């Protein structure tokens, strides 16, 4: 799964949040299955060339929120969906939607025009 994760250190968003978001996305999207074992913090940090403490922080948060589980002496796994928080695929797009709406407002585009732009692009 290492190849599925990428971070951009130069975006203004903290790296641990980028990681958090991507792993949630992979779980919700089904690329990561229940019980699937995650690479270790060390492997992730090495692969992404980022500080292991940052990776550890993201994993810790995912465990606390019930996305991942960590049993004593075992690697971190994807938690059973029943225990996982109820995040829908739509919620994952909220922040991007907000960005788009902000830009639209700056350009003076109204909601109806934005909607029709979406419809136009959707069928392409």
């Amino acid at each position, binding site marked *: 799964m290492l190849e599925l994760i990428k971070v951009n*250190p*130069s*975006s*203004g*968003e*903290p*790296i*641990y*949040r980028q990681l958090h978001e991507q792993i949630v996305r992979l779980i919700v999207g089904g690329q990561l299955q229940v019980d699937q074992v995650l690479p270790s913090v060390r492997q992730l*940090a*090495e692969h992404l*060339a*980022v*500080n*292991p*403490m*940052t990776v*550890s*922080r993201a994993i810790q948060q995912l465990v606390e929120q019930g996305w991942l589980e960590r049993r004593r002496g075992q690697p971190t796994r994807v938690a059973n969906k029943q225990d996982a928080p109820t995040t829908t695929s739509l919620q994952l797009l909220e922040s991007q939607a907000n960005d788009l709406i*902000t830009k639209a407002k*700056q350009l003076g585009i109204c909601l109806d025009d934005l909607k029709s732009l979406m419809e136009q692009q959707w069928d392409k």
Partner: protein
Amino acid sequence: MEHSEVILEFQQVDKRFDDQAVLTQLSFSLSAGMVVGLLGQNGAGKSTLMRAALGILEIDAGNITTLGETATDLSIDAKAKIGYVPQQPFGYEGFTIASALELHSSFYPQWDKALETDWLARFGLDSKQQVQKLSVGQRQSLALIMAMAYRPQLLILDEPVASLDPIVRRQFMGDLFELALESGSAVLFSSHITSDLERVASHVALLKQGELVLFKEIDALREEVVLVQLADNQDLPEGLTVLNRNQQQVLVDNADQIDIAGVVNTTSLNLEQLFMELHR
């Protein structure tokens, strides 16, 4: 991870060269496991700060405690636990790499020969080669081996990687983490390559004209320091930490804690953008 043991501490440090203040009321500290990226313009005082921490340079006021000792009066024992890579290339002219390393390692009881061999291979250095024939990048690599093969408790790097290629730089960053997290060392690292600092640093210290304007965990930096565009004629609320201001564009530190009225938009910044905004 606990940041308990303080390894290097600056307390209200002042340093002047003739009439010019180079460091002003500088206070911060490094604990075990921290990798602190030091950022600042040329002449902001980065090298001075590093040299003062090593006791190479006397300060005019304040205290610097390095590995529990006064910086200007370090014991041999303490010195053997410090690694330093200066900006300028070093001596060992007339030596081969092997003989330079042999002499150098004799000063450090904790020298790890296996690590030396690994890193020579990694950096692609041939130990039979003459030191004076090395390229700038190769010299930097050798200097890094010399400063790190004894797993120093305190590692101070003054722009060490500018001449290394991106692949070697990445591997080297992995070594830094290992040193910081597994050996419980502290690293102070200056670089103009902000994307490297963004990957490697747990904390960022920003120097501007000898003053420490920011010292924060890197993730906190991204969340708390933002660029705010205010509506015309809108005043700033009390209690806001303003780092810089250009008319209605304000760089603020604790924007997450205070409600600001009349905000047109808020932008979070990466390190390079932050650096530019701070010096506008």
